[in-house]
């Protein structure tokens, strides 16, 4: 029996004793009826109490939701059954009839019926539509504790303290009530009355089976949702399983374990499990098929009274002494992990599968983990190692364990893992390609293990560590209850710590720079150095998260997919109707796993967060693109933009003039503001605009605003400051018209018009002031006239001391003509782009880019394919051959003194790998690579009679050079020399062999083609070098199989033939220029001969055609028509390019008229012969000849003992054991 560690509590309430529970079938609601007479309606997802219903008198024991209607029913110790509407939140009616406490009430799944069980020993069926009692079932002779309808058939099962369980057949009742409905009201009444008479000896409900087996009272009984099974719980502490057929019912088995009264039992709606609850404070889970205990959850102090299951989802609820708890039996989060474009996940059947994000296809089952952990516990986490293609799976079974398994290359059904390494641990994750970390929470240790499951180091994590996650290279993220630690594995210490509560999951961004720490209600984004970037709170539980490539975190709550940017700006992407676990975002697709562990693709609109991201990153092109392509509107985005200080961008989205005006003012876009102000024409707006314009220095707009507002004073002053005298004087006129003297005075003052002022003063009878003004400005005439008008003399006046006359300042700059340079226009790049001013932002060129991208892809793919083929062609079979062939060939003994240079000065030194190569192989090339040139030469001498090694020097050094790498090791010392092998997989020192540069395949695809090219392009000197190079390279080489030996031989022959051919033609050209040759009959003869011999070597047909054409033309020129004819015939026989054929035909026609040779040459077109490579003369078949043991070139016997003219290495006529390329 296990501890209650696996309990996944989703909700708990505190209240008095809970006696009845019912799940709402659709909404996250639960009804709880309490011993205290209250019925509570909870939202268990949000954890909030929605409502309370308090009309019962005394404890309420039974409660049930209607499946479809907004109704519920309750039954209590007040003998009453009440039917409620949770919409109107009141009791609709009460059904009276029971004579004692009511224990349970249940709705029928389709008929408008309620079944109730009561201490009055009866079970009653009610019709809640016409609120009548349909049937009373008697038979129990003690309290009826529980009665339930069968979910499909016309059956009721009941439990009673009389120790029996009864199954009732109510098909009669259904027949009676589903009769044709064309009944009059009277009929119905009589029918209803008839029911009453049926009460005794009725046939509506008859006992079908009486199940006896409990030896105490039975508290609860329930049908299986699909199978003919019944489970019951009794005071005898037993859970009994019953089976029934059409005719009988019997006890199947008993689950023993409760050590106090068992109060409730039910079948798991989807799995073969039984759950039971009892007064021993435990909830127990049993295997339905084996009737063995699977799990048990114990509460410290509370006895359990009732247990209920959600009909659809994997949720259960249990009522106890102090409230209810809603819980899950197992985690529904499928274990999964993402690597690049592949999702690995474990299905409900415990199969490992993968999902390709690019092709959107699910793989077949890669592996079956049936044997992992206990059968009822799904794996918890999955970690993938791409280098080894292995997975780490953890499960909570057996106190937590992990398993390291290699995935097969391709899925071929449910294979059991062939070999796996396992151990105890609560979390296990890969931390490097060859290391994984295992956390053991009970012992509080973290072990770092290598791939063979050996602990390489071990340390104590911070106290209370509950989980570990990958923390970037060499680091772990250690999750403790109130903090997250970044732990350096090498240093064995915490390098950073962040206090975050209750982190459950860590999700790394794709670039590895950020991680999201998910706890129940919070998302905290941190950098890879564990510095907090932002955090946000959700009231709904956060389930999962994944990063967009651009650095936006998408996360899912129970009912939403949301996003958050690094700066914490967040919002809703879409709603969810079922909980999912996000694994990947790609464009508009969000990939996720649902609770059934099926990959799903949700379509989302990423516009909003992309836009916000672009805004934050100031990526205006992207924003522009989004604006032009998507319908991005709405108050939220505008207020967001405004809040974030981007009014100018918000401006682009708004149509409403008021908002536009506000935004324009905010971003200083006066043009728009003016436009909007004109549209709206409200004084308040004008005044705000004027202030804004003034601060910009845009006085023409200010002027307009003042005009609109009729603010004459301000206008005047504006004109004064801008020096616009004409307008100022017009203002004066206006003031005069308006009769506003103050304004008039002011304007006159601004204009410096003294007369006007005096005139005005006079008009308003302010003579003293008029006089003063006149006096002050020295207008004595005016003074006099005023004095006269007032009848005063100058003496009578006492004047204050006067200063200099006031004159208005002179105009310096005609500011009024144009605006000052205004405040820097805030027209952003973005606006310019919108106005089409920025080039290269047009959207048309995108498809082009896309197609060109495709094209590139194709090429890349082809390339890759080509390479793959290349790789395939490379054989890897030479390992098994290395050992046995040693004695087969003449392998010269390694001369110790020379090879072991180091052994002289270092006593303890061993022989280097290079020496091993020489020992391991009879091939010359391996001796060369090992630096054992002498033995290599010996070998070549014996194999092919090589005597002149000078041409091979480059190849020797090439091979030798390729054999060693230089690994920088300890500082201050020379680099460590390592020996490069062609046997990469081999580690047995007796089988290792060196790498060979320019292997056969390389030669065939590179050098040989170059040789052909030089033939085609008539660069024969180069060609000769190339073909000789090929010969050297093949001579010092190794191949992987016998068939390759044949290929190598072909290559040698071909290269040799070309070398001979080219040498012949080059020899001909060396004879001299055409003139010289033509003058000298000897040379002419030789020239014609050589040109004819040039056609003999077995070179490729197109190349032979060149030789033939050449020979034919030369023969024609020298009037050797007969020979030319033979060449023409050969050309025609070979076929090929039509131009060549045309020439040949013409020549042929010409020659046939006169088939005679004017120069006699040694060339018998009908004889079979080969060319001596040294003398370039024919060796007729039948005559003796010598050849080169390596390249097979032929020689007249007189050349025996000389160095082969073709390869320049071997002695002609010296027969060795043959070239060895494969051991």
């Amino acid at each position, binding site marked *: 029996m296990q501890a209650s560690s696996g309990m996944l509590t989703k909700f708990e309430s505190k209240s008095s004793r809970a006696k009845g529970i019912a799940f709402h079938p659709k909404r996250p609601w639960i009804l709880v009826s309490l011993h205290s007479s209250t019925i509570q309606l909870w939202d268990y997802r949000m954890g909030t109490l929605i409502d309370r219903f308090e009309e019962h008198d005394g404890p309420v024991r039974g409660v049930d939701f209607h499946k479809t209607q907004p109704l519920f029913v309750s039954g209590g110790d007040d003998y009453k059954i009440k039917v409620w509407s949770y919409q109107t939140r009141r009791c609709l009616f009460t059904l009276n009839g029971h004579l004692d406490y009511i224990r349970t009430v249940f709705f029928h799944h389709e008929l408008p019926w309620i079944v109730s069980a009561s201490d009055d020993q009866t079970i009653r069926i009610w019709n809640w539509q016409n609120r009548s009692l349909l049937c009373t079932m008697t038979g129990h002779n003690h309290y009826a504790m529980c009665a339930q309808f069968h979910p499909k058939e016309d059956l009721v099962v009941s439990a009673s303290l009389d120790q029996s369980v009864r199954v009732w057949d109510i098909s009669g009742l259904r027949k009676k009530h589903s009769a044709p409905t064309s009944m009059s009201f009277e009929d119905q009444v009589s029918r209803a009355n008839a029911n009453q008479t049926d009460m005794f000896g009725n046939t509506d409900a008859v006992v079908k089976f009486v199940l006896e087996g409990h030896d105490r009272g039975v508290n609860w009984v329930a049908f299986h949702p699909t199978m003919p099974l019944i489970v019951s719980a009794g005071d005898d502490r037993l859970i009994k399983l019953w089976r029934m057929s059409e005719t009988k019912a019997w006890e199947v088995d008993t689950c023993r374990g409760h050590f106090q009264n068992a109060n409730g039992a039910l079948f798991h709606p989807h799995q073969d499990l039984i759950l039971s609850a009892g007064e021993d404070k435990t909830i127990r889970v049993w295997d339905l098929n084996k009737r063995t205990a699977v799990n048990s959850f114990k509460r410290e102090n509370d006895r359990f009274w009732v247990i209920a299951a959600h009909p659809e989802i994997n949720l259960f609820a249990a009522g106890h002494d102090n409230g209810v708890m809603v819980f899950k039996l197992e985690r529904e989060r499928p274990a999964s992990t993402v690597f690049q474009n592949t999702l690995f996940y474990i299905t409900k059947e415990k199969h490992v599968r993968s999902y390709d994000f690019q092709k959107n296809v699910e793989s077949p089952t890669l592996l079956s983990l049936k044997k992992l952990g206990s059968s009822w516990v799904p794996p918890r986490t999955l970690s993938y190692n791409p280098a080894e293609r292995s997975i780490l799976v953890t499960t909570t079974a057996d106190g937590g364990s992990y398993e390291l398994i290699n995935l097969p290359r391709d899925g071929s059904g449910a294979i059991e893992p062939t070999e796996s390494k396992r151990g105890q641990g609560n979390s296990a994750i890969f931390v490097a390609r060859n290391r994984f970390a295992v956390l053991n929470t009970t012992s509080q240790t973290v072990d770092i293990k290598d791939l063979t499951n050996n602990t390489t180091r071990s340390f104590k994590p911070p106290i209370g560590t509950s989980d570990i996650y990958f923390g970037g290279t060499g680091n772990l993220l250690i999750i403790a209850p109130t903090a997250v630690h970044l732990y350096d594995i090498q240093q064995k210490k915490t390098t950073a710590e962040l206090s975050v509560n209750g982190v459950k999951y860590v999700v790394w961004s794709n670039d590895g720079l950020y991680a999201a720490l998910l706890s129940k209600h919070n998302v905290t984004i941190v950098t890879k150095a564990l510095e907090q970037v932002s955090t946000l709170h959700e009231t709904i539980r956060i389930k999962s998260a994944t990063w967009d490539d651009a650095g936006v975190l998408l996360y899912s709550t129970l009912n939403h997919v949301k996003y958050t940017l690094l700066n914490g700006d967040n919002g809703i992407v879409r709603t969810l109707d079922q909980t999912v676990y996000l694994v990947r975002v790609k464009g508009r697709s969000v990939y996720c796993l649902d609770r059934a562990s099926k990959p799903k693709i949700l379509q989302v609109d990423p516009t909003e967060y992309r836009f916000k991201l672009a805004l934050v990153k100031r990526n205006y092109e992207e924003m522009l693109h989004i604006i032009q392509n998507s319908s991005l509107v709405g108050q939220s985005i505008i207020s967001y933009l405004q809040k974030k200080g981007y009014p100018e961008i918000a401006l682009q989205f708004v149509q409403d003039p008021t908002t536009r005006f506000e935004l324009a003012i905010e971003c200083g876009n006066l043009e728009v503001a003016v436009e909007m102000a004109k549209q709206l024409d409200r004084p308040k707006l004008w005044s705000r605009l004027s202030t804004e314009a003034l601060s910009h220095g845009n006085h023409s707009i200010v002027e307009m605003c003042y005009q609109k507002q009729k603010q004459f004073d301000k206008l005047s002053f504006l004109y004064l400051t801008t020096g616009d005298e004409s307008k100022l004087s017009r203002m004066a006129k206006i003031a005069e018209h308006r009769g506003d003297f103050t304004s008039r005075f002011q304007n006159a003052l601004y204009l410096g018009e003294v007369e006007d002022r005096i005139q005005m003063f006079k008009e308003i009878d302010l003579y003293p002031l008029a006089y003063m003004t006149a006096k002050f400005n020295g207008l004595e005439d005016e003074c006099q006239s005023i004095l006269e008008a007032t009848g005063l003399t100058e003496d009578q006046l006492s004047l204050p001391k006067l200063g200099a006359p006031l004159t208005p300042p002179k105009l310096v700059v005609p500011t009024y003509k144009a605006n000052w340079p205004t405040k820097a226009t805030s027209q952003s790049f973005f606006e310019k782009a919108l106005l089409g001013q920025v080039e290269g932002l047009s959207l048309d060129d995108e498809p082009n880019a896309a197609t060109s991208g495709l094209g590139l892809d194709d090429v890349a793919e082809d390339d890759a394919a080509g390479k793959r083929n290349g790789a395939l062609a490379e054989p890897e079979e030479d390992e098994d051959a290395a050992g046995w062939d040693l004695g087969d060939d003449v392998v010269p003994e390694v001369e110790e003194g020379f090879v072991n240079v180091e052994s002289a000065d270092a006593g303890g030194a061993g022989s280097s790998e290079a020496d091993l190569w020489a020992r391991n192989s009879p091939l010359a090339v391996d001796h060369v690579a090992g630096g054992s*040139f002498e033995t290599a030469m010996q070998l070549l001498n014996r194999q092919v009679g090589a005597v002149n090694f000078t041409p091979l020097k480059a190849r020797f050094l090439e091979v030798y050079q390729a054999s060693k790498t230089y690994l920088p090791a300890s500082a*201050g010392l020379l680099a460590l020399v390592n020996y490069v092998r062609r046997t990469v997989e081999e580690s047995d020192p007796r089988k290792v062999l060196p790498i060979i540069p320019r292997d056969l395949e390389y030669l065939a695809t590179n050098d040989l083609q170059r040789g052909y090219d030089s033939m085609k392009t008539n660069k024969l000197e180069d060609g000769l070098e190339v073909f000789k190079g090929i010969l050297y390279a093949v001579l010092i080489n190794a191949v992987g199989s016998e068939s390759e030996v044949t290929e190598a031989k072909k290559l040698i022959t071909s290269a040799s033939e070309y070398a001979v051919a080219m040498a012949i033609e080059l020899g001909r050209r060396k004879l001299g220029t055409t003139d010289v040759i033509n003058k000298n009959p000897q040379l002419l003869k030789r020239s014609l001969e050589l040109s004819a011999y040039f056609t003999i070597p077995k070179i490729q047909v197109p190349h032979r055609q060149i030789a033939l054409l050449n020979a034919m033309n030369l023969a024609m020129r020298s009037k050797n028509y007969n020979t030319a004819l033979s060449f023409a015939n050969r050309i025609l026989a070979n076929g090929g390019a039509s131009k060549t054929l045309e020439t040949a035909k013409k020549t042929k026609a010409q020659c046939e008229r006169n088939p005679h040779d004017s120069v006699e040459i040694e060339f018998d077109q009908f004889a079979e012969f080969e060319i001596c490579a040294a003398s370039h003369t024919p060796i007729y078949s039948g005559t003796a000849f010598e050849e080169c043991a390596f390249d097979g070139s032929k020689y007249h016997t007189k050349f025996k003992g000389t160095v082969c003219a073709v390869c320049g290495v071997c002695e002609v006529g010296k027969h060795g054991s043959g070239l060895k390329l494969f051991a």
Partner: protein
Amino acid sequence: MDPFSAEGELINLHNHFHQGQYQDVVDFDTAALSPENALPARVLQLRARVALGQADDVLADVQGEAEPELEAVAALAEQARGDAAAALKTASRLAASAPANATVQTLAGTVLQAAGRSEDALALLSQHQGNLEAVALIVQIHLQQNRTDLALKEVVAARRWAQDSLLVNLAESWVGLRLGGEKYQQAFYVFEELAQAPATSSVRSLVSQAVAELHLGRTEEAQVALEQALKKEPAFADAIADLLVLSVITGKDTKELTSSLEKVDAQHPLLTDLAEKSDLFDKAATKYKAKVAA
């Protein structure tokens, strides 16, 4: 407590040094270190400077210092300047006078080995008491002597007490590159992890990664890594040498690389070795000739 152990405060300095991040070692702020670690830190920084080619400055720095550690550094600097005789003299003296000093072991051991006196170096180094640097040196010396078996033994022994420390991993990888087979891949992991993490990447680790890749037959990847390394430090002779080897293997022209290697380090083993082999070839070739001259 060993100041270089995982818990010690010198671990970062130590790791930087052995990851080949010499400049980081020199730039390391040692002011905050506890007094007893000041000397080891200084020694490490001096060694880093030697590795960076500032042997003369270092020699001037430690002139007249009496601590055996600093004398050992002086020996190292002398050796780096090419004054092998003086270095050897100092090293031999220190090996006799302070053979238990870890720094002396490491540095004098290095000098002795560099002078070809492997046996003396091993004799000195074998006296170490949990000195990982000594272990690494011993491993390297054994490898240079082609005693892979002894090197492997040393690593396995060290792994027992030093767990997963950087030097043990490195030394194991060195051995792995000799053993081959699966060990190539494991060595590759170690080097790659160092080379690809920005915090630990250095030219040396990149070259090491490339070498492992080359041995694994992944020539394209090796090429990329070597080019990366040369971008970081164009005059890193081993990188040029390895690139040269790679070019030979892939059949490319090597003239340019050979000349640049000659420019950077005319005494590089690849060149000296090649010259030696070239002579050997000429000598060996004279033993053969055709019966009849053409």
